[in-house]
Each structure stands twice: as structure tokens, then as C-alpha cells.
């Protein structure tokens, strides 16, 4: 029985099985006898049933399509159209053949990808020794920021929370929109806020997540920006200049001493994150 199971699982779906049956007949897809194919397919399904194998829904759907095609074939040609009232081109036989041809093409393309995959395993890039010249520029700043990491943390927390429903059964008291309001209020009052402060009062995971989502949303909406005045400094959240190119002064009620610090303020077009000036 286990042997059969292995065999059955070779087929990745009904189309795959159909292609296999066609190949066994050694005929072109366009020349295949669909009635015969239907019979073989259904025999195969029956075999799977006999062995108590789980039959994926897709196989059953295909089986019924094939039964339908087969039953149509049994009708005299002149009655077919009348009975079905179908327009030309809705012929289920054609639809099936089209699907098979298309699937076959991608299956072949997959085989070619597999060849490329195997080939790449044997391709070694030239990796020369590092050139050495006297004046070496400072190492490049990686194209990543702490926010990428934070985003990742957030994604993990979110997903974990979804799966974790069995353990934490209490209502979420927090919503992202509340937190958006909260952050905007703090910023309006104070001009800027340290990143960590936003989370200090958080009571639990869900609140952290909400606050964080709210923050990301505001950054995305270009309401706020995050700046890190220098490497290793604390990240600060402040209001974004709406038109960064023209340096429009923001109506900042309380420009704190920190806001006066030099900040390399690029337009927050993508992430809203400003990279710290590189120390060299």
C-alpha cells in the first residue's frame, strides 16, 4: 500500500495525471481521445479510493469535468449544441485541452529551470583578493537601518500573536488608530519624542504592536520622520516637513533643544527614515 501511495503522490495534480496518461498513449495532446482519457482518469481515482487514499479535491473536480465531457460525447452531434445551449468556444473539451497545453508548457519550463539550477551549483564566481591601496575610504554604510529590524520584530510579533490565541485570551484593549492619536498628540505637545519613550508605558505585547504599527503608519503617511542625530544615538520621532525640498518651516509649537541639532534630513520618500551622518 505504501508503495502505491508513493506512486500516487508523484502526480502534483489532476493536470499532471492527465499529462501522464496522455504520454502513456503516445499521442499529441490535440489528438487525445478524451473519452478514453476520462475513463482512465476515473479508473485511477477509483484505484485511489480502493486504497483508501486521500483524494485531493482538485482530482474530484477534474473527474466530474471529465464525466461531463464523456456524457456529452455520448449524445448525437446535432443534439449537443441544442441541449447545452452553449456558444462556440465554451466547449469544455477545448477548455481542458487548452489548460493541458498551457500546463505542459510551464512544466517544460520548470524542467529547464531545474537544469539551470543544477548548473548554477557548479558555477563559481571569481572572488579576487581585496585590492589594497593606501587611502581606503570608510566602509560603506549598509543599506539597512534599525527600522528594518524593528519591522521584522513587528512582523514576528504579529504572526506569533495570531498563532498564540490559545494562551492569551484577553481582549485587546488597544487599537492602531488610538495609538495614532496618541502619538500625534505627544508630538503636537512636545515637538519630538524619543523612540523608546513611546513604548515605555506599554503594558503588553499587543500594545507594543499597536504603537509600533501606528508609528509605521504615520511614517508611511509622511506625517512623521525618524531621525538618528548620530550613530548610536537614540532614535527620535518628529513631525515630517511636508515639503522637504523647499524647507518649509513646520509649525512646531515647542521646538525643543534637540530639534535644533543638526540633522541630515533627506526627504522621507521611501521609508521616512533618515540615515545618520556617517562618522569618518
Amino acid at each position: 500500500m505504501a508503495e502505491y501511495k508513493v506512486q500516487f503522490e508523484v502526480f502534483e495534480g489532476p493536470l499532471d495525471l492527465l499529462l501522464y496518461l496522455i504520454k502513456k498513449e503516445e499521442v499529441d495532446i490535440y489528438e487525445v481521445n478524451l473519452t478514453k482519457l476520462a475513463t482512465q482518469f476515473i479508473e485511477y481515482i477509483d484505484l485511489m479510493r480502493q486504497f483508501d487514499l486521500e483524494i485531493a479535491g482538485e482530482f474530484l473536480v477534474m473527474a466530474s469535468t471529465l464525466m461531463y465531457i464523456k456524457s456529452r460525447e455520448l449524445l448525437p452531434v446535432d443534439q449537443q449544441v441544442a441541449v447545452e445551449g452553449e456558444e462556440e468556444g465554451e466547449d469544455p473539451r477545448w477548455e481542458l485541452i487548452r489548460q493541458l497545453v498551457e500546463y505542459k508548457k510551464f512544466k517544460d519550463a520548470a524542467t529547464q529551470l531545474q537544469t539551470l539550477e543544477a548548473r548554477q551549483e557548479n558555477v563559481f564566481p571569481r572572488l579576487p583578493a581585496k585590492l589594497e591601496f593606501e587611502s581606503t575610504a570608510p566602509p560603506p554604510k549598509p543599506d539597512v537601518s534599525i527600522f528594518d529590524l524593528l519591522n521584522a520584530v513587528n512582523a514576528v510579533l504579529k504572526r506569533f500573536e495570531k498563532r498564540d490565541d490559545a494562551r492569551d485570551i484577553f481582549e485587546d484593549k488597544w487599537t492602531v488608530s488610538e495609538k495614532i492619536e496618541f502619538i500625534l498628540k505627544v508630538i503636537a505637545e512636545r515637538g519630538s519624542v524619543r523612540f523608546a519613550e513611546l513604548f515605555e508605558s506599554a503594558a503588553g505585547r499587543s500594545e507594543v504592536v499597536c504603537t509600533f504599527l501606528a508609528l509605521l503608519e504615520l511614517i508611511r503617511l509622511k506625517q512623521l520622520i525618524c531621525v538618528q542625530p548620530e550613530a548610536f544615538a537614540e532614535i527620535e520621532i518628529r513631525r515630517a516637513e511636508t515639503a522637504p525640498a523647499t524647507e518649509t518651516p513646520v509649525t512646531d509649537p515647542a521646538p525643543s533643544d534637540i530639534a535644533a541639532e543638526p540633522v541630515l534630513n533627506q526627504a522621507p520618500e521611501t521609508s521616512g527614515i533618515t540615515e545618520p551622518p556617517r562618522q569618518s
Partner: protein
Amino acid sequence: MELKFILESLLFSAQKPLSVKELRDVLAAAAEAEDADATAKSLAKVRDSELTVALEQLASEHETAARSYRLACVAGAWQFVSQPEYAPWLKALVGQKIRPPRLSQPALETLAIIAYRQPITRAEVEQIRGVNVDAVMQTIMERGLVEAVGRAEVVGRPPTYGTTLLFLEYFGLSGLGDLPAADELRKIVVQKPPAPVTTEPGLATVPPEQLALGSEQEKKVETPETPATGGP
């Protein structure tokens, strides 16, 4: 000094594959050096098209030389790579290449469909493969070969997927045009209705007569009414 040799020396010495843009930047930087000579200065603003021509010429020269390495363009970046037949010795030198496990057949099929048909919705992929693709999509997204690229302009705005740069790197392709049988399979992409994509897979798929087929088969396609089956 010829541009192509300058590019060659850069690719020969670079620690990683270099794109045309990166090469252009290096040439620009060299032109601004204090001691830049006339040649260096003349290359301050070389056009991308010139660079591409020079790179392609270089690649073809190396191809002709038929040595143990060649110049390859992978995912839009150029680098020298070994010919696969020397792998046994290179493995002995640098150790087995670190690569993730090979992709399964379902993963390869799904990837092929996405590669040729992108941007494509999950429903469309399922329609072509005839099976549910949730698990396999997760695998290939996890491996960074595929990513969400947008949303289809249809009810529900389902996400659409496309292949990543890593996909090209993984298979050693210079770009999507380099996909095997690209001419044949990509024809389908070109003929897809440009705007409103639909999740109704039947519609997103080209009509049968547009499927690129050998001329003999094509004839048959056009007259699907003729029953291929023997009748009752």
C-alpha cells in the same frame, strides 16, 4: 586604452558583480581623481549604452577564447564565473558551494508560471497548475525568489506576485528575457490585456489561438470543434 579593457580590469578585480550603473560610477569617480589623465577624464560621462556594448563585446570575446571562465551577466550585474565543468576542482579548492536545498518540482512549476506571467495573482497560478499553491507559494516567498509586487485591479484587489533579483541570481539569468524558451512563453505575457487584470483566470489567459505553438498544432487549435475523440 580601450573602454572594454578598463571594464574588464574592473570586473576582474571587483569583490562582487557590478552593474552598468556601478561601473559608470567608478568611471566617473576615476575621472574626478586629482591625477586623472585624459583617458580617465574622457570617461567621466560615458553613456550606459556604450558600456553595455563594450560589456557584450567583452563577454563574446571571452566566449570565443573558450577558456575555463567566462564573463557572465547575472541579474543585471557582470562578473567572471567559472565554466561548470571545472567544478570538481573548484570544490576541492574552496569547498562545496553553500546553496539552499534544491527546489521541488511543484516549486519549480510555480516559479516558472510566475516568472513568465508576472505580475500574476495566486488564483491565476492555481488555475494553470490545477492545484492549490498555498504551501508552495510560502516556500518560494520564504526563499526570497518571489515577492508581492502589487494588487490586481479587480474585486478584492488580490496581491500579485513577481520574481525577485534573487530568482535571477539563483538560476544564473541575466534578466527575465534570458528565461529559457522566453520568446515562446513570454509571448503570452505580451498579449495579456495591459490594464485591468482580472482574477478570473480564464480571462487573464490569452485566447487559445494566441498560445504560441508550432504551425502544425496551431492549425488544430483554430478548429477545436472537430472532435478529437472518436465519438460514440
